[in-house]
């Protein structure tokens, strides 16, 4: 595979090496330019209802798309996020952040423009291809593109650095949701729903925004260190050695962290998607639909804030200890949720879920630094890309656990207010599994360490797999 480390002109890694005197505080905004844009994915649902009325306008016509058909757009995008981050991780790492950000910008904007065309000729397959496939690839490449760069600039605070970027992914929906609604209102007429025009505008705006990130991003020179930086004293759980991306897959550490992330994400996704319905069913008469929408907004804020707060905290607590906190606190809170329902404590319920969601976001934001501690900085972006398959798996487990167990309980005459109890205890049990896996994480065996820029377990073997 062409690595992009030589040639490539303006996009090459060499051309992005910062000159002496460049402030590292320019790099987080560059990363945020990308993450704030691709974070729009969380807000895609604002288009679902308008897209069911593109023909009928005031109400759905027989030829209009169904919500179930539209649901596949987001699912495809998340699926291709996992696939592309796993497949292109090494290319992103070796080609440098500018090339990756530019590619993500082209795919993201291209996805919106193809989708706009799909809306204009009413062809759903084009939207699957545009937003689902191309947009999903942009999500994967864009998500991992600034991760290792940030950690190289902030070796003293890697958790905080990646926390800032990944916070942007959580915050992107806050901008996209009201912006999309405003744009659609501007383009709506009595005979036309302005989804197509909104897609075109968003595609152009996001392209410009992401290109700004691509222009200002820099990687540090090989010998660069922050002023006054002293490497941390000997710590078995912070490796000074690098592990080649495909060798990381052969270590138990990778798979243990995979399970830990999957557990944390399953627990978060499960309640995030169902919080509105769950809160209304557990507190009938106390939480109205409008209040439930407010709860979802509040949880989103905690999701975003948790990304920065927990990842920053991990710089002081240590990555493994931070995940111990997630697993222990998660277990306690999930056990408490049915109790809050039983005693009718809305405040207790809201507090439990807000902390759980903060840890869901915190898990995403802390994991790049955890991987860096285990496998070094050299291929951490690519390894992170492979680990994101845990997210895809959790995207299936979480909603299935919540929805199907609730449905089973309801059909077996369990009152709706109590239908979530079993799920909450199963989630708590998952945290026990996560705690055990986290406990088993030890330093990576020295035989996996790279030697002189070559993979430890044989370059030919690795190249064949690449």
């Amino acid at each position, binding site marked *: 595979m062409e690595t992009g480390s030589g040639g490539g002109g303006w996009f090459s890694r*060499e*051309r992005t*090496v*910062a*000159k*002496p*005197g*460049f*402030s590292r*505080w*320019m790099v987080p*905004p*560059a990363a*945020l*330019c990308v993450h*704030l844009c691709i974070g729009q994915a969380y807000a895609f649902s604002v288009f679902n209802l308008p897209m069911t009325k593109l023909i009928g306008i005031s109400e759905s016509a027989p030829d209009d798309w169904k919500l179930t058909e539209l649901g596949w757009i987001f699912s495809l995008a998340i699926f291709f996020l996992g696939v592309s981050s796993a497949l292109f991780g090494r290319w992103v790492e070796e080609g440098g952040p500018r090339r990756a950000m530019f590619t993500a910008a082209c795919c993201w904007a291209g996805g919106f423009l193809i989708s706009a065309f799909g809306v204009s000729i009413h062809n759903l397959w084009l939207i699957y291809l545009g937003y689902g496939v191309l947009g999903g690839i942009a999500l994967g490449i864009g998500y991992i593109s600034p991760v290792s760069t940030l950690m190289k600039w902030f070796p003293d605070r890697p958790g905080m650095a990646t926390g800032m970027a990944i916070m*942007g992914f959580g*915050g992107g*929906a*806050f*901008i*996209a*949701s*009201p912006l999309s609604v405003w744009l659609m209102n501007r383009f709506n007429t009595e005979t036309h729903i302005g989804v197509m025009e909104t897609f075109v505008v968003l595609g152009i705006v996001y392209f410009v925004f992401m290109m*700004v990130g691509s222009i*200002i991003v820099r990687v540090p*020179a090989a010998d660069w260190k922050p002023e006054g930086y002293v490497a941390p004293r000997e710590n078995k759980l912070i490796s000074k050695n690098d592990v080649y991306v495909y060798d990381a897959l052969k270590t138990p550490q990778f798979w243990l962290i995979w399970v830990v992330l999957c557990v944390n994400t399953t627990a978060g996704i499960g309640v995030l998607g169902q919080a509105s319905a769950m809160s209304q069913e557990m507190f009938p008469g106390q939480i109205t639909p*409008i*209040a439930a*929408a*407010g*709860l979802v*907004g*509040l949880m*989103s*804020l905690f999701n*975003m804030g948790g990304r920065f707060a927990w990842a920053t905290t991990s710089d002081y607590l240590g990555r493994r200890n931070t995940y111990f906190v997630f697993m222990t606190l998660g277990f306690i809170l999930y056990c408490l949720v049915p109790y809050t329902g039983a005693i009718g404590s809305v405040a207790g319920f*809201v507090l439990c879920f807000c902390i759980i969601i903060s840890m869901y976001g915190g898990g995403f934001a802390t994991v790049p630094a955890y991987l860096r501690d285990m496998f070094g900085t050299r291929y951490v972006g690519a390894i992170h890309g492979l680990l994101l398959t845990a997210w895809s798996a959790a995207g299936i487990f979480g909603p299935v656990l919540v929805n199907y167990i609730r449905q089973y309980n309801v059909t077996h005459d369990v009152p709706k207010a109590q239908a979530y109890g079993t799920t909450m205890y199963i989630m708590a049990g998952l945290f026990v599994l996560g705690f055990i896996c986290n406990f088993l994480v030890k330093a990576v065996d020295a035989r996996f360490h790279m030697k002189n820029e070559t993979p430890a377990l044989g370059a030919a073997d690795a190249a064949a797999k690449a």
Partner: protein
Amino acid sequence: MENTNRTTTTTLQLVLAWGFVGIPLVWGVFQTLLNTLQLFQ
């Protein structure tokens, strides 16, 4: 080589870069907070 010259990042550049991402983010958070207030009404 490009990276052998010295450069200085000015405060203005930092303000512009952070403002570019910070202003939309703060606006988005504010809009979400307005919606969130419904929970407490």
